[in-house]
């Protein structure tokens, strides 16, 4: 009898404990990183080894602070590709472990391969690192949500400001690599849309050579003025140099005393360490505390991606990846990301609408959309490819 009682009491205790502290719902997020880090001309702009993923790690902490009240727990599974690794294989390996969301920082071609490999697997990719417009246009996929802005959004954000400033005559210098040409195309489109004129274009050929030399400055100081001389009258030099070959050499070295914008000088970005409006200081402080360095645009894009998943998990009170994704793609989804207004998804191509910061390396000079560029639905849709122009047909 006593033994029976003991068993009953024991049984009750077990029941109560489990009811009080049920295991939290586990929500796993994969993070796929590209191999290597792109070298920059400026030593201070050289990305940190954990560029991007550091933002996702902070978002996981933020999600877990909230998750404690909802009995949800988030975890980041990081995969770093090596040179020659297949992104699709790595993505499949993550999906095989029942990971429903993968934040992706890989180039456009790898992203597409991964997206097609994940088709029918129920795992979605959150593109944090590729700005190519084609991924949102003729190469759009239903299982890719784009958190990074597009080249055209960045170009439009810059163009709106230059036009507002009445710097409407642009002299454009374009690099010789494919990405430079794509940026030039976006800038040309922006000039036409907002009423600027490209008075002349020049190509800066990449002839190879080391990015850092001991006596580099002397040579550059002679090269750049010569390269920019005999230009027609212009207000601002716009550089398209994603490959980091020449643009950072232009400020203060142009033949005519003119400001530089685009890939150097006044640069359009999704985020900057100098951004301090709309509560951003708290975010910058949290990031600095966790990572002991400043927060980059890629860090912010990854943070936003992981926060979107956390936000949808708390709104749906669910760890089910289908419910979370349906909510993110649905009409009620929005995310706060320290940019002064809610960010939402364009339903025609799953691109996150967002203001574009214009920064000079020390300060945020302005934030686009600029006043006066109006839109019937959202002023954020004055940036990038709008619904009537989209070439996205879901496949």
């Amino acid at each position, binding site marked *: 009898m006593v033994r029976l009682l003991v068993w009953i009491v024991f049984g009750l205790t077990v029941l109560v404990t489990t009811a009080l502290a049920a295991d939290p719902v586990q929500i796993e997020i994969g993070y796929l990183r590209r191999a290597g880090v792109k070298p920059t001309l400026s030593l201070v702009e050289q990305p940190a080894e954990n560029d991007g993923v550091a933002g996702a790690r902070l978002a996981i902490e933020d999600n877990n602070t*909230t998750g404690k009240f909802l009995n949800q727990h988030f975890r980041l599974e990081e995969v770093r590709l090596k040179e020659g690794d297949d992104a699709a294989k790595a993505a499949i390996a993550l999906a095989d472990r029942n990971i429903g969301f993968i934040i992706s920082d890989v180039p456009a071609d790898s992203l597409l391969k991964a997206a097609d490999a994940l088709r029918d697997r129920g795992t979605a990719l959150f593109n944090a690192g590729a700005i190519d417009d084609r991924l949102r246009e003729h190469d759009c996929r239903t299982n890719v949500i784009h958190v990074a802005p597009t080249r055209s959004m960045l170009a439009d954000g810059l163009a709106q400001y230059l036009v507002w400033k009445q710097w409407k005559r642009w002299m454009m210098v374009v690099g010789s690599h494919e990405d430079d040409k794509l940026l030039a195309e976006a800038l040309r489109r922006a000039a036409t849309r907002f009423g600027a004129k490209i008075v002349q274009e020049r190509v800066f050929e990449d002839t190879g050579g080391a990015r850092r030399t001991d006596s580099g400055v002397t040579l550059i100081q002679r090269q750049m003025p010569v390269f920019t001389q005999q230009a027609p009258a212009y207000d601002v030099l716009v550089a398209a140099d994603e490959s980091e070959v020449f643009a950072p050499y232009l400020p203060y070295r142009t033949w005519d005393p003119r400001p530089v914008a685009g890939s150097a000088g006044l640069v359009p970005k999704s985020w900057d360490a100098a951004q301090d409006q709309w509560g951003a200081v708290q975010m910058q402080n949290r990031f600095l505390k966790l990572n002991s360095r400043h927060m980059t645009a890629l860090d912010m894009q990854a943070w936003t991606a992981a926060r979107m998943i956390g936000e949808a998990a708390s709104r749906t009170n669910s760890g089910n990846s289908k419910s979370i994704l349906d909510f993110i793609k649905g009409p009620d989804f929005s995310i706060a990301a320290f940019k002064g207004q809610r960010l939402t998804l364009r339903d025609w191509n799953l691109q996150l609408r967002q203001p574009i910061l214009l920064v000079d390396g020390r300060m945020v000079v302005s934030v686009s959309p600029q006043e006066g560029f109006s839109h019937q639905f959202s002023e954020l849709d004055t940036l990038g490819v709008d619904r009537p122009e989209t070439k996205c047909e879901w496949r």
Partner: protein
Amino acid sequence: MWRLCLVSGIAVWLAGTLPAGAFVAYVSNEKGNTVSVIDTDKWAVTNTIKVGQRPRGIEVTRNGKFVLVAVGDDDTIQMIDTATEKVIDTLPSGPDPELFIQDKAGKILYVANENDNTVTVIDLERRARMGDVQVGVEPEGMAISPDGKFLINTSETTNMAHFIDTETRQIVANVLVDARPRFAEFKRDGSELWVSSEIGGTVAIIDPVKHAVTTKISFNIPGLRQEAIQPVGIGITADAKTAFVALGPANRIAVVDAGSHQVTKYLLVGQRVWHMSFTPDEKYLLVTNGLSNDVSVIDVAALKVIKTIQVGELPWGIAIAPQ
């Protein structure tokens, strides 16, 4: 000599008998690092007090002796003596204090510290820290239920109103609201808790017993895009009939029928309107306009803006001393 005494005596007596209806309002100027002192009889700034870095949350102690102002970038709360209008001491808040609230007796101060996800509890008499409560990411809005039993804290990135038992200092409930909740206010009878969501663009009406959102107030201003409507400060009259909601960059105060939760009117005020405070007689409501560096005065009965007072740079919070 006698004459001099008599004259100064009269002067003191005159100063002591301000006309009825004259109150003193204190406005924190976020960028100016100052507190503007406003005489509500003259509707004029009578003094500008230098304070620490980035003053935002501001309150007058229950006994009227001190103005407390959170100076976030100095990681502290400064105490201003209302008699001398000088900073005389600091309170040990946590890092980056923003908003805070006192209990009914004026003995305990609860402070939201944006930087480390905590609410700090401070003994106002001893001016000492009593403890912390762990809350969500970026705590901001603070309220106490009229019966004193529950402290409410809203967290801006977690998007919740946390109900904290003031006895045990444990969280007893969490209510999810729209994005970036910034301010919380109870109806005087304790029947409803109102929480504004700046980025979500709504005010949630919460049943404090069921811990559930019963309805949400949305705002619609013709000709204004939805993203510009960003509710922050809330004021509810003592009879719980009328509420006022500051709509930030929409440059308007929404007047809400607090019974039916319907918006009845929008009052145009200055740019980026943040917070508000009633005069103790509730005849006037003063609101701070962050971008136009002024304070609008609203006649509560007439529902009209009757005056604009220039203050310091980027006015944020406002508190009015009890008479």
